[in-house]
């Protein structure tokens, strides 16, 4: 998977964003964030959209957005370059695991790419090794920070790596 940031220029009237969103959905992309750059508005509004998408589909996505008559001003595919593993210990499942993982995925620059959970018995704490990839080392540290925050609230212990590799 890759994270792609597109800047498109949309006319300032209803229905324009759909021209971008439909192709994203068609190519199985997942929208992470949409920012209207209204301060940079001319006759059109630049909109920055971050999408998580299979690398193979990036080119097709850009083409089908252009086919809708939308100007794609720039797009850059950012590969997830930094990866590390973090361990979680506690009641991981019963504290809404999806929501915990989402703390990383929601950042837009990092995602959980792998997870291994051991649940020895009911009611006992589980242990999970979560592998996180991010667009860079700083982003990876931030993503770990977000994960730590949510785990703190849920009473889950986080064991961080000594070095981010």
């Amino acid at each position: 998977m890759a994270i792609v940031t597109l800047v498109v220029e949309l006319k300032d009237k209803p229905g324009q964003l759909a021209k971008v969103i439909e192709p994203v959905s068609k190519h199985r992309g997942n929208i992470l964030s949409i920012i209207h750059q209204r301060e940079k508005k001319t006759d059109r509004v630049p909109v920055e959209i971050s999408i998580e998408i299979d690398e193979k589909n990036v080119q097709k996505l850009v083409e089908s957005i252009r086919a809708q008559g939308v100007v794609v001003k720039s797009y850059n595919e950012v590969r997830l370059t930094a990866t590390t593993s973090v361990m979680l210990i506690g009641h991981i499942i019963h504290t809404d695991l999806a929501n915990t993982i989402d703390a990383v995925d929601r950042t837009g620059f990092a995602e959980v790419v792998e997870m291994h959970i051991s649940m020895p018995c009911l009611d006992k704490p589980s242990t999970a090794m979560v592998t996180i990839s991010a667009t860079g080392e700083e982003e990876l540290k931030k993503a770990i920070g977000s994960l730590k925050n949510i785990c703190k609230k849920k009473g889950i212990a986080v064991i961080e790596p000594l070095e981010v590799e």
Partner: protein
Amino acid sequence: MKIAIFGFGAVGRGVAKVLMDRERMSRVLGDYSVVAVADSRGSMVSDSVDLRKALEFKEKTGRLPEGMSVEEIIENVDFDVALELTPTNIETGEPGLTHIKKCLEKGAHVVTSNKGPLVVAYRELERLARKKGVRLMFEATVGGAMPVIKLIRRNLAGNRIESIKGILNGTCNYILSRMEREKLSYRQILAEAKELGIAEANESYDVEGIDSAAKLVILANAVMGMDVKFEDVEVNGITEITPEAFEIALEKGYTIRLIAEVSESELKVGPRLVSLNNPLCVHGTLNAMLIQTDLAGEVFVIGRGAGSVETASAVISDLADIRACSDDL
């Protein structure tokens, strides 16, 4: 050199035993005599205290014979160096803090293995020592026998210390490395460690990371020029670690160790995933430290972090250093 020993527990007795080897010790300490030995309940004071007798008395009765208190000795007995080896209290620093202050005030050098006074009042004590023109040495407080403080201050002088990452508690390292190898639970290994005397009856000071955090505060203040308090350290212990944690970590090439870390942006103690080929992946009761410097790059130290004679080694090296730097001793 006239030496007063305050505190006659494991470290004090270890120092006494080493000082009894007069032939070897006089090579580094010159002429020396122990003029006072005191514990919390008694003391022996003379021109040259018979250390063998002091050790025997302590062994038989669990205390030293009735005599002057430490504070009375500081006031009334003439000595050049005080060895402050009383137990650590990181909340108040006492009784060591008062002892150290009074000794420095009177113009005596101090060598200590007691973390408490340094955690509570490092800057104050350092200023007082400088004002009085005497030395305050504390190699034994961090990493036991492992050379750390003088290594950084002396041998790495001129370097900027960018970060220090270390295993500073042998009890935790023992428990974790056995959990790693034997897949037993934390509770099982802890119980065994207590039987073997590796863990204290009240283990919380070690396993909750408090001891490591106290040492980290000393490092941050003494060799990294910071001014931090114990409360500034983010502290997590090892009590929640599951046996499965090691298996799962191993699949990614990691093990788990309790790491104390200080850098410009971090001041924390907690269990960390440590790559199996990281030098900090040491086993048993060992301590280890990775020092990141700007000129020398990485420097790694490994050694025994506790033990009576091991800690005495650090105390003696401080004494030797004081002597080497003073013309009149």
